[in-house]
């Protein structure tokens, strides 16, 4: 079967890869957005924390015998707790300063974290097998679907939509949104805003770590895996604008798909297509697709 002169299995295969990349873009962009909303800093350590999530899964398996599914819960908890320590000890000291200092601090943290992991584990990458329950392939008739890949997309969707629901539909989320709008006023109502900020950072980091655990069986676990993703995710955040939770999710998935399709129709452009979309968006909608007025 051919679609637009492209063999259908190739087209669907790349489309699936695009959706999977999109799932990671969406989770990372979402984490950056909620952190930005509360802390007003852009977390340059996000890629490093994503990488730490993948390493957490690998370390748990090799030293503690903890399997994939427990790691999917424990990894984000451990790395999220690490994020909370970072926020408490370091990042919280900078809130009264220009936001660019927060960016520089998290950039430095990323260098330290990635350097330490590179020192300890080298750059070649460590294998992490797909758990048995999720291995294998399903025949969908028009293409073969690896079960693990379907699982990644489903898990990412559930986590993204749950995050969206918590922020948009629950009392906790309402406080969070109020804190984003006007922290001084929320504080006057007796809500502990600094604690809310800490928890938000921890949650954003946990989201990155969750993505990291999901990524461990697909990409080899190596210290640079976050770096490869995060620059693209920054472009996606610029495209979507950080004002909207749903916007980050939609933009993440959409750009993954666009990247996948580019691989089919114009392979040479696949590395740069997301950056080109960013250029076009900047030309016509400088605030991003879902960005609010400055």
């Amino acid at each position: 079967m051919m679609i637009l002169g492209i063999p259908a299995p190739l087209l669907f295969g790349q489309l699936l890869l695009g959706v999977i990349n999109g799932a990671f873009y969406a989770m990372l962009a979402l984490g950056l957005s909620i952190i930005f909303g509360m802390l007003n800093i852009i977390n340059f350590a996000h890629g490093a924390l994503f990488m730490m999530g993948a390493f957490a899964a690998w370390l748990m398996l090799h030293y503690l015998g903890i399997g994939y599914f427990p790691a999917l819960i424990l990894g984000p908890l451990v790395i999220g707790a690490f994020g909370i320590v970072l926020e408490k000890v370091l990042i919280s000291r900078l809130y009264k300063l220009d936001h660019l200092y927060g960016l520089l601090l998290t950039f430095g943290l990323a260098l330290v974290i990635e350097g330490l992991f590179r020192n300890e584990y080298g750059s070649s990458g460590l294998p992490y097998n797909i758990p048995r329950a999720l291995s294998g392939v399903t025949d969908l008739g028009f293409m073969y679907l690896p079960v693990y890949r379907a699982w990644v997309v489903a898990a990412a969707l559930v986590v993204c939509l749950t995050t969206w629901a918590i922020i948009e539909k629950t009392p906790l989320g309402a406080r969070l949104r109020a804190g984003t709008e006007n922290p001084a006023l929320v504080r006057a109502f007796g809500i502990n805003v600094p604690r809310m900020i800490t928890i938000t950072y921890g949650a954003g980091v946990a989201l990155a770590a969750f993505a990291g655990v999901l990524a461990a069986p697909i990409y080899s676990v190596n210290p640079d895996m976050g770096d490869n993703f995060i620059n693209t995710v920054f472009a996606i955040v610029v495209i979507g604008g950080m004002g909207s939770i749903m916007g980050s999710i939609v933009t993440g998935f959409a750009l993954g798909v666009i990247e996948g399709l580019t691989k089919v129709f114009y392979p040479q452009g696949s590395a740069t297509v997301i950056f080109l979309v960013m250029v076009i968006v900047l030309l016509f909608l400088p605030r991003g697709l879902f960005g609010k007025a400055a």
Partner: protein
Amino acid sequence: MSATTETPAPAAAPAAHGIFGFTRAQAVAFVVMLAAIVILPHILYPIFLMRVLMGALFACAFNLLIGYLGLLSFGHAAFYGMGAYLGAWALKVWHLDAALAILVGGATGGLLGLALGWLAIRRSGIYFAMITLALAQMVYFFCVEAPFTGGEDGIQQIPRGVAFGLFPLHSDMAMYWFTAAIFLAGFLLIHRVIHSPFGQVLKAIRENEPRAISLGYRVQDYKLIAFVLSAFLSGIAGATTSVIFGIATLDGVVSDRSGDVVLTTLVGGLGTVFGPVVGAAVTTAMENYLAQFGSWVTITQGAIFVVCVLAFRRGIVGEVAARLKLSL
């Protein structure tokens, strides 16, 4: 950066005294720097000093944006690296004069800066940082694919050639004096620009952009001109470095290079005149010393970032200037 930072208040009246608007303290510092440039090559390895000088020029160019306009670029490697490639190409393939080849590198940086800056100045603050980072990443991918860069090998065995048709640059000392002249020209150009009415407008934009707009200044034009100038000088630094070492590789465009120049400027002192120079000496010496320890370079760089941001935001020169109540 904006008014919330701890940077000391900028010097008052522009060009009120001395040549090129140096205050007395700055004039003294400048003489000290000149003396160091003349004496040090007889004590230290000239190749190392040339790396310091070009690192300093690159950081001065970067500092023009962050220090006087409050714009943090995370993509300056694009201008540095493309300048290095085109400068190398001009020297090796077109057989141009070394001075002309370096100008080709600068022009490449400037033109690229015009295109990327035109896009990036549509946003400010952290978005500006992310956009410059992403655009530089695009340039990097382009360089990986494009045939003229030589891919992983880069452009190798670039001859140093002859400067101005008169001075052969084969010996390290000749190359050193040429590099020192380029650095001083760039340094004085930036200093002159900062202390011109144009530079005062840049500071006004940094302090209060809406006010500058309401006073009738075309803020976007000012930002773009400053961006192009900064990119041009970054290209000059990149091209000169490729002439010094005879090689231009992906190492120049990779995003680590953008991080290095941020660190250099931060260590020396954001928004100070001599900070980037001191910062370049410190970070280049550190890289030299740590090179044998592999990834400890990155770890140390990261740790310095963290320490500087938390406890040492003025940087070395900024701290000294604040202690002595001077503007340096």
